[in-house]
């Protein structure tokens, strides 16, 4: 069952890489935006909130097209990043990671935001009186307390990356070894006669990877939970 073709192995490796990068790269933004939405009071907060939710609301194909139009080689952001930073997304694995990150972003932000809103702000005040500046309060009190939300957000983002293909395939196509992630490969199998067995095989691999990630995250969360346990 595990006799995968080299292209399929590539897809597995790429999916993990893309999933991890999507998760890791979106984390700081996810935390920042979640903080803004949970704590901030500013004009346009509803707008920001809406924009964050867009990838959830839009059909993935539309998200993919919008990414293609803005981050593509000829898109305004894509060409800017390419010119000034040498970062290229179009038809690279980085683009797949970007697409997955974007698709998982609303999930990550929600999870983190829920945790932030549950933080007892009196603890932050206590840290302040002990001399911790807002940044230190965040690092030493808020961040540890919202770890459950961060873990949940990360696992949602990773799981989403393992299943996302609509936006990915639309944005960076389905090039084996470069942008062909597991779900894209699965999709391809479903498009041809006799592809079911192949699709099934890859699906099982995808599930196995995600389950492993889930189990690790649950163990981690349980650890945190025990520490925070309010006996």
């Amino acid at each position, binding site marked *: 069952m595990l006799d995968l073709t080299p292209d399929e192995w590539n897809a597995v490796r790429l999916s993990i890489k893309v999933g991890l990068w999507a998760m890791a790269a979106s984390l700081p933004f996810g935390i920042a935006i979640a903080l803004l939405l949970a704590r901030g009071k500013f004009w346009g907060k509803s707008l920001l909130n809406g924009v964050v939710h867009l990838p959830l609301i839009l059909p993935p194909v539309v998200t993919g097209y919008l990414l293609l139009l803005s981050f593509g080689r000829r898109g305004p952001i894509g060409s800017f990043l390419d010119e000034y930073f040498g970062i290229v997304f179009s038809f690279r694995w980085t683009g797949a990671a970007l697409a997955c990150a974007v698709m998982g972003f609303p999930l990550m932000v929600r999870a983190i935001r829920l945790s932030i809103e549950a933080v007892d702000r009196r603890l932050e005040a206590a840290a302040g009186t002990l001399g911790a500046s807002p940044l230190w309060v965040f690092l030493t009190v808020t961040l540890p307390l919202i770890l459950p939300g961060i873990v949940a957000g990360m696992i949602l983002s990773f799981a989403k990356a393992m299943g996302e293909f609509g936006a990915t395939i639309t944005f960076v196509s389905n090039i084996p070894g470069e942008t062909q992630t597991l779900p894209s490969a699965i999709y391809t199998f*479903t498009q041809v006669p006799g592809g079911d067995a192949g699709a099934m095989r890859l699906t099982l691999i995808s599930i196995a990877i995600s389950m492993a990630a889930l189990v690790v995250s649950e163990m981690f969360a349980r650890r945190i939970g025990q520490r925070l346990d309010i006996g």
Partner: protein
Amino acid sequence: RADGDVVVFAAASLKNALDAVDAAWKAESGKSATASYAASSALAKQIEEGAPADVFISADLDWMKYLADKKLIKDGSDVKLLGNRIVLVAPKDSAAKADIAANFDLAALLGDGRLAMGDVKAVPAGKYGKAALEKLGVWSSVEGKIAQAENVRAALKLVSTGEAPLGIVYQTDATAEPGVKVVGVFPEDSHPPIVYPVGVTADSKSADAAAYVKYLQSAKAKELFEAQGFTMLAPVVSN
């Protein structure tokens, strides 16, 4: 993916055939092709946005024309490569029989079931199917009973699982799917010709793209395509 590979953007339904052809090409010429399979629409828009594709194989003429109109296909490089047929299928345990001709009683065959086919606006097989049914004069009687699927494979699944008693799909799909049987074949003149065109993109820098397109029209390729149920529209060229 090694640099120097020919990058082929091909409609997803070609995967089986094209993978075989690519393998043969590699065996013969030592050169590799990398295929990216997706919906023709997505591929066309990606090429429009500067995708590194050398060759585009579309599932219909519309998306090829879309690119050609934008001068994104090398002038004169496009070839009508493959053809296909659309057929009426039923679950393999179905007793349905149909003689597809003008005004045949499709509605009666469906009963209170639905006719699965590709999206009649978006999916080529759906468009062809609708054209055929209109030409045969039965469209109006079944219009309300269509289940439009995202693509022809999904339509096939609806039939093979028994969800829909009948469906219109490509012959290539029907012959390979054990869960369905072909109830009838639509006359070739009942719909616009089903064509898979191929073309070299205007931005292609690959020296081998032209050779690859040529190989697609070779005798070996023809054999492999036909093994998957396609018909070869382009005349065979020899290397």
